[in-house]
């Protein structure tokens, strides 16, 4: 019998190792698996490479993971946002590495990683600093840059509902990077607002098929990052 449900976020993230590459879902707070991130802080793994569109807000969630010194390198498109001070501060003091990737190239590199495409060409970033040192090639008279797949040891994502087999559906724009991240990690760990029986999700509407999901944690009332930030919360 397929059994992917874990008792706790702590149990689900227990084997994330020092130096691991971790894809973390979410675009700002929308879709951020904050309980899994907090469990990862508690767990203590260090020297992580983290892939997320941003770098978190305030002193909770992803920002707290960074603030607690667990992240050696961020791969992201937009490390600065309102209420984001942790990463910019560490970066200005040379305490954290940054690989800046255009947002669509980031999404496509992750998708390629999950889809067995080691590299692809894109016009995005051609003629800019972000294409420097990369292979260029013309197709039909237009110049493109070669970008490489991005894969990871773990993915931490959040979804609206997960069924027993591991099928997932998401909520509105909280979907964002999570479906492609689920495909590109060796181990995909999901926090679900709802855990349901197989068959409760409409087969035509499943966004992440069960094959991509390894572990599920039910978190029925997840913390909301913006509430915590507004309250001045700090984790741990």
């Amino acid at each position, binding site marked *: 019998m397929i059994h992917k449900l874990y008792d706790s976020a702590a149990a689900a993230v227990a084997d994330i190792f020092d130096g691991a590459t971790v894809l973390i879902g979410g675009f700002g707070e929308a879709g951020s698996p904050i309980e899994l991130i907090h469990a990862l802080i508690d767990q203590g793994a260090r020297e992580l490479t983290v892939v997320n569109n941003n770098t978190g807000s305030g002193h909770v969630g992803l920002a707290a993971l960074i603030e607690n010194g667990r992240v050696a390198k961020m791969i992201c498109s937009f*490390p600065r946002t309102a209420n984001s001070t942790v990463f910019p501060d560490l970066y*200005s003091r040379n305490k954290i590495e*940054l690989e800046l990737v255009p*947002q669509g190239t980031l999404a496509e590199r992750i998708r390629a990683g999950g889809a067995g495409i080691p590299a692809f060409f894109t016009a995005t970033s051609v003629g*800019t600093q*972000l294409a420097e040192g990369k292979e260029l090639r013309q197709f039909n008279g237009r110049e493109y840059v070669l970008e490489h797949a991005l894969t990871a040891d773990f993915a931490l994502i959040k979804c609206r509902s997960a069924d027993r087999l591991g099928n997932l559906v*998401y909520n509105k*724009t909280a*979907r964002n990077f999570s479906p492609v991240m689920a495909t590109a990690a060796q181990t995909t760990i999901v926090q679900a607002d709802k855990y349901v029986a197989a068959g409760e999700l409409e087969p035509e509407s499943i966004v992440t098929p069960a094959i991509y999901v390894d572990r599920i944690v039910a978190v029925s009332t997840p913390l909301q990052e913006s509430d915590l930030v507004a309250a001045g919360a700090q984790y741990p």
Partner: protein
Amino acid sequence: MTTATNTAMGWSRQDIARKIAADIPDGAFVNLGIGMPESVVNHIPDGREVIFHTENGLLGMGPAPPAGEEDPELINAGKRHVTAITGASFFHHADSFAMIRGGHIDICVLGAMQVSQAGDLANWSIGEADAAPAVGGAMDLVAGAKQIFVATQHCTKSGKPKLVESITLPATGLAVVSRVYTDMAIFDVRNGAFELVELAPDIDLQTLQDNTGAAIIIPGHAEAGKAASL
């Protein structure tokens, strides 16, 4: 080149948004950048159906929700609360940028730090070494959308021209801008030059040229550099 203050002259931010909205055809699929472009959504003329895309996974973005009805999982690329129109669809980031990169977005309206007469755009970095750079989806949008409209103040806050012969800030994309809307004028970027389309009220050509870092072309007048003397 003088640095005009142009207070109370030219178009307001809402005027600019209205001018852009008027140029978006019925049935267009449009992506609006963060900042001034966002207000375009409020000025689409009656009877026109324009569908707004936000790159974080929503086609059919609607206006901001009433206070108290914000959903933290329904936001736009600027991470502001939005709504979804009837007939909207949600999708993941790779699908959203496939839509952009694949040339399916008709018009993208972006802000600018600099635009060159070749259509090069700089709008993501001021090139400071110790500040974390942030690009977001700007490079994808300029490479992918069918047309890039720029919405910007004509000059920087310190009065320097943003429309220039060559950009000096890091590029977002080369030869990508097709139209520029400022508080002073509207230009087509064509054949390596800024072609004047419309001049704002109370702005004369001399003022416009004085505040522009590249020669302005008046369509029908072939020679560059003549604008100021017309």
